[in-house]
């Protein structure tokens, strides 16, 4: 069987080899690949700043870089990771590649707008990288006023313009997905036959479309204040800095769901595929994505409990923040129920899925600590918060992204990566992540504030643990680059469906044709029909 598998003669990757055939393509799959390369570059740039932070914090004294440089390090780390890696990560790469085939379409509804969104992302990235090279920014990724408007003398405007522009790339991606999911579904692909990955992206797109314009206008107001001396947020000019925080978090809390919802979608695909079972409670999992998107818009002020909002407002926002736990728990329990009595296995993507479940649970539960008014006053602006959101954004979103990438890599490239090294990397990422960030819960609870480049001696042990864990984590991230690139040439040919998965995308050849399907498929089964499907192409083992 092994020698029967060959890379098909025609596929989207060899449909034109010139640079122009890539830069002017309207193929969602090629655009996804270009996004993959772009965000990987951004990930490693953002990661370098993370390395700088951990190096500085290995010793209690501020000896590696000055306090000002340190401020720039954590700002650039946050800006690049949030706006240029996490926000586009799963939607722009995996969503772009997979949503059309998953619903049986030839392309997204607006292929040209899809390409434009990539160019917009690049232009935004250039502005932000320019700001980095020109000396960086030191406001923190949150750009709180009045410091960002009148205090800081670093490159606030170029960075803000970069984020403003990149925001439109995110809006256009979301808009494209919404229209595609509404109007491009193949015959028979009803809403309740959609893979949960698609439902998750639908919810994500709603957040992108409704939230991103608010950060855009906030940046405009910040820019006119800083650039033209207009008075809007600056208290010296009669403005209200808390208004900035409201507007900022109105986007930036839902933005967390732009990062995590797609990962939850990937998770549902992985759990179902590798336990050979229909997902438990399909419609609950589907609607919990929408519920998270909706609740996400009414909890933002939990970031502002100590910013001087009224106690009553704080109580309401605290209560609402707790309610986000319900749909999140619905998902987690349904995945557990799917695993129960399933034929579960331990392929690399599934290792990431197991890791995700643990880390997402810890990240989510510590979120409840922070939503509690009294406790938040104690741990606000400490490393506890840093640890919490890294559990969600790295432990959740990046684990989901890597799990998805390992799952669909054979579909995207037609070849398998090294099973051994990918498992090593998955374990390194999981272990390294926990060693890095778990001590930060402790050190934060003990009172170490975030955003300082020095700290009291008694925190050193925990910080050294964190820096050591970060080394393992970093290596765990470098390893996939090597074996993925290696697989492009030397990897075993994967065939159309190496995991025996049930989704429509596995019906295409690997790598797919430019038009995905020769004929529009007609769907007449429910999703995740693993009861009928047990053909697993075991040739890979």
């Amino acid at each position, binding site marked *: 069987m092994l020698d029967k598998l060959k890379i098909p003669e025609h596929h989207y990757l060899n449909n034109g080899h010139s640079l122009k055939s890539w830069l002017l393509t309207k193929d969602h799959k090629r655009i996804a690949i270009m996004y993959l390369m772009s965000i990987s570059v951004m990930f490693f740039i953002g990661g370098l700043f993370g390395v700088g932070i951990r190096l500085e914090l290995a010793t209690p004294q501020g000896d590696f870089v000055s306090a000002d440089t340190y401020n720039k390090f954590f700002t650039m780390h946050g800006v690049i990771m949030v706006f240029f890696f996490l926000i586009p990560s799963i939607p722009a790469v995996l969503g772009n590649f997979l949503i059309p085939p998953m619903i049986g379409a030839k392309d997204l509804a607006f*292929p040209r707008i899809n390409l434009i969104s990539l160019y917009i992302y690049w232009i935004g990235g250039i502005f932000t990288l320019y700001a980095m090279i020109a000396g960086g920014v030191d406001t923190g990724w949150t750009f709180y006023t009045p410091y960002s408007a009148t205090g800081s003398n670093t490159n606030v405007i170029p960075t803000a313009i970069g984020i403003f522009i990149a925001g439109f790339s995110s809006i256009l991606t979301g808009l494209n997905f*919404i229209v595609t999911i509404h109007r491009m579904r193949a015959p028979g692909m009803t809403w309740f036959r959609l893979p949960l990955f698609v439902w998750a992206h639908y919810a994500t797109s709603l957040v992108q479309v409704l939230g991103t*314009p*608010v950060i855009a206008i906030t940046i405009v107001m910040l820019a*006119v204040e800083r650039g033209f001396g207009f008075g809007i947020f600056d208290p010296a000019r009669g403005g209200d800095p808390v208004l900035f925080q409201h*507007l900022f978090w109105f986007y930036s809390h839902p933005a967390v769901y732009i990062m995590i919802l797609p990962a939850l979608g990937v998770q549902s695909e992985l759990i179902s595929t590798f336990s050979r079972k229909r997902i438990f409670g399909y419609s609950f999992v589907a609607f919990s994505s929408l519920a998270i998107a909706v609740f996400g818009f009414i909890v933002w002020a939990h970031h502002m409990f100590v910013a001087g909002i009224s106690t009553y407002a704080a109580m309401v926002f605290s209560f609402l923040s707790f309610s986000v736990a319900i749909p999140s728990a619905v998902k987690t329990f349904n995945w557990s129920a799917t695993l129960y009595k399933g034929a579960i296995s331990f392929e690399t993507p599934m290792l990431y899925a197991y890791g995700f479940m643990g880390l997402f649970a810890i990240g989510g539960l510590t979120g409840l600590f922070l939503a509690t008014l009294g406790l938040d006053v104690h741990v606000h602006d400490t490393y506890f918060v840093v640890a919490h959101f890294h559990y969600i954004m790295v432990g959740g979103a990046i684990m989901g992204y890597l799990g998805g990438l390992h799952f669909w890599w054979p579909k995207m490239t037609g070849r398998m990566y090294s099973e051994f090294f990918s498992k090593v990397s998955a374990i390194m990422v999981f272990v390294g992540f926990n060693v890095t960030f778990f001590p930060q819960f402790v050190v934060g609870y003990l009172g170490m504030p975030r955003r300082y480049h020095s700290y009291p001696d008694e925190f050193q042990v925990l910080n050294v643990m964190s820096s050591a864990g970060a080394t393992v984590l970093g290596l765990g991230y470098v390893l996939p680059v090597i074996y993925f690139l290696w697989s492009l040439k030397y990897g075993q040919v994967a065939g159309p469906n190496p995991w025996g998965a049930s989704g429509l995308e596995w019906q295409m050849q690997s790598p797919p044709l430019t038009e995905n399907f020769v*004929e529009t498929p*007609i769907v007449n089964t429910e999703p995740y029909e693993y009861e009928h499907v047990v053909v697993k192409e075991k040739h890979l083992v």
Partner: protein
Amino acid sequence: MSNAVVHADSHGQAHAAHHPALQHHFDTMGQQKEAAVIGMWVFLLTEILFFGGLFMAYMLYRTWYFDAFAEASRSLDIFWGALNTAVLIASSLTMAMAVRCAQVNKRMATVNWLILTMILGAVFLGVKVIEYSDKFEHHHVPGLNYKWAAEHPSTALGAGAPAPVAGAGHAEPAAAAAPHRELSLSPEQLQLTTQIYFSLYFTMTGLHALHMIIGIGLMSVITWMAWKGKFDAEYYTPVEMSGLYWHFVDIVWIFLFPLLYLVERP
């Protein structure tokens, strides 16, 4: 193979003569048009939230500094504001006519209505230029020697100001007629808080004007396409989409006009 998916020709009837404007990934013209319409509405939703942030800021500061907002608002010339409102509403009508004509295959009428819409848009922007230059003259541009002068008509001249001829660029007939009213704010506070009003005024009207300029740019392309005969009863989506956009920009002004010009007028 695994899933019970049948490959079949799902769009049998669509193989008869494709419309030249039908893109390859759509099955029918209807599907293509619906996609565009939904996409445009979703885009307009993002636009609402984009302006929404500004309206939020406006709401807060107007509540905090109502007197300053009322005072600063009276310094705007209601004549120009009302004229522009009328111009924009008229342009929405001409735009709707253009869409209708495209729908019923009237090529030259479409072109003419589009041109008329662009002219009305340009008139609006011209009036905006007159108003902006007036603000520069009166030091009402925040961050640029901003000065809320006491000799301003509404506070100093009282009711005795001569009624200017309509059309004089810097006249404030309505403001001049306002009765003198005790203010709760000191001149220093007024200087500070009217500046917030004008910061919002310039940001809001500036962004609105930018949207108009983009709209006129879009429309000139659409006009050229219409003139080239690219549209017919089966395919006039671009005309309809720019129409939706234009109506949206119009609606934003319908909110901006009372919020900025009519805060408190006798």
